[in-house]
């Protein structure tokens, strides 16, 4: 569109560091930086650590006595059942069960107030705001419904520190929880904490950052939400400190290019490609985000459709298409839009994401395939430049994940 592109708090840093800037989701974002190409940056993340600016994503706060129930009405999750300071992958749903956007919901309730921190995709910013506004308006029309206050945190920064060295790098900044240095090995995948970085963010900037263990790469790592300021740039201050404390032999900035190839290897969906308004969580292989207690009761957008799909085939359940992983046995990558064919050459599906896997040295893809052909090991073909290339349905993640679940955990 002709509208001016927005800038994140790290825009100036991207320029200084030689970021190749492109428009993305209404923002000017770096695809990669001049020091490493996309493949090199991808490998760096898996071997050392990378820092991604993800401030283009939309951060929200939902609070109040009705917040949990409101979120439960438009997602298949159970926010109330989320242990304090833990998060879950979720999805905002259309009434027909299609996915409006995928999201992470974190329970940040304290003793006196129910509160949820929610992050949604940058590219869906306008759509999600409209969806939530409408849903909230409908919610508020019922006087029985608990009060909900909803704020978008558009001044906050969000950075992702990912890779095997992420924990030691963050620890070197001596993060404190409630005034005491926190041993980050006690912060497990899926958990969050308010942390201060006293040596780095002081004075006006000293408010705590919400640090969540997890990310979009399959590696161990952290996503850090930093409260914005009108007078300073704490996101830049923290980012520069991380780069300084770690040094360029351990930590580099990474852009959207490697972010995409890393998440593909980890089997994670990209909204607008692998999931969209027409896909239900069941078709997308995300049935697990439908919380157990929601399966019995329903009562969320699309629950009729989704609960029916969750039933066994013999009971009229199931889906006609399923998201699968594919390894292409050819040197040409299969990319979004490539047809998937069966051994007879009939069209049976389509690729929704694909490209070379630097870690595996093979071409990988994600796509939807006719139910019945979705089993691991099924031989298929993908059509690239009018030629059918052999491929095989493969379990995801393509590259084993390394989420930190504590010492000695499996």
């Amino acid at each position, binding site marked *: 569109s002709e509208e001016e592109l927005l800038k994140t708090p790290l825009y100036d840093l991207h320029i200084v560091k030689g970021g190749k800037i492109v428009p993305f989701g209404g923002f000017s974002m770096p695809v990669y930086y001049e020091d490493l*190409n*996309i*493949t090199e940056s991808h490998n760096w993340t898996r071997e050392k650590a990378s820092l991604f600016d993800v401030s283009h994503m939309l951060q929200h706060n939902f609070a109040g006595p009705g917040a949990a129930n409101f979120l439960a009405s438009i997602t298949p999750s159970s926010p109330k059942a989320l242990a304090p300071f833990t998060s879950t992958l979720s999805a905002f749903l259309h009434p027909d069960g299609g996915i409006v956007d995928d999201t992470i919901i974190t329970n940040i309730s304290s003793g006196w107030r129910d509160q949820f921190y929610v992050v949604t995709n940058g590219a869906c910013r306008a759509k999600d705001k409209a969806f939530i506004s409408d849903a909230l308006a409908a919610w508020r029309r019922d006087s029985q419904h608990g009060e909900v206050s909803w704020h978008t945190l558009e001044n906050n920064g969000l950075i992702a520190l990912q890779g095997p060295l992420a924990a030691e790098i963050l620890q070197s900044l001596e993060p404190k929880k409630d005034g005491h240095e926190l041993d980050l090995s006690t912060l497990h995948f899926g958990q969050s904490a308010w942390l201060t970085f006293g040596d780095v963010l002081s004075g006006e900037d000293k408010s705590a950052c919400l640090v969540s263990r997890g990310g979009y790469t399959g590696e161990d790592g952290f996503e850090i939400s930093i409260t914005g300021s009108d007078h300073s740039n704490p996101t830049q201050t923290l980012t520069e400190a991380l780069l300084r404390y770690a040094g360029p032999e351990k930590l580099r900035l990474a852009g959207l*290019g490697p972010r995409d*190839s890393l998440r593909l290897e980890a089997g994670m969906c990209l909204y607008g490609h692998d999931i969209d308004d027409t896909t239900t969580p069941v078709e997308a292989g995300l049935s697990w985000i439908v919380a157990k207690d929601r399966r019995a009761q329903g009562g969320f957008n699309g629950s009729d459709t989704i609960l029916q799909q969750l039933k066994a085939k013999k009971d009229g359940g199931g889906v006609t298409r399923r998201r699968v992983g594919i390894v292409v046995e050819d*040197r*040409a*990558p299969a*990319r979004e839009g490539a047809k998937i064919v069966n051994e007879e050459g009939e069209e049976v599906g389509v690729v929704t994401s694909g*490209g*070379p896997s630097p870690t595996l040295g093979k071409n990988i893809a994600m796509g939807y395939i006719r139910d019945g052909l979705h089993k691991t090991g099924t031989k298929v073909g993908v059509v690239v*430049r009018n030629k059918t290339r052999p491929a095989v349905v493969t379990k995801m993640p393509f590259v084993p994940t390394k989420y930190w679940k504590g010492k000695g955990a499996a």
Partner: protein
Amino acid sequence: MGAFRAAGMQRRGFAVAAMLRVKKYTEDHEWVELGEDGVCNLGISKYAANALGDVIYVELPELDMEVGFGDTVGAVESVKSASDIMAPVSGKVVATNEALEEKPGLLNQDPEGEGWIAKIKVEHEEELDGLMDEEAYIKFTEESS
């Protein structure tokens, strides 16, 4: 590699052509250079190689393939996208640069030299007349940016 020009010289004639390796460019950013025996080298331009980013795979044309001007004869794959290679002349593919199979990065290092893609035995040398010379091509890329 600059174009060697001599005012008033005809391009036809084998002895003359050997001296006059004039590179021509298409609007699809391929280059073609007519050599001896009516065989020309072709590849993608420096401008195209830079725009593509790091090349990870080159799908070379098939040997002995008969191609028409503008036919897709292969592709160059970078991390994020693929670009078709279009034949800048019609004729028959008589050689492909197998070095690119082992080292696709050669295309980025030297797209207009060592990173040549294929050789075509040209049927109608006049087809090259319609293509841009280096100066016109540079102007064309500046206008498109």
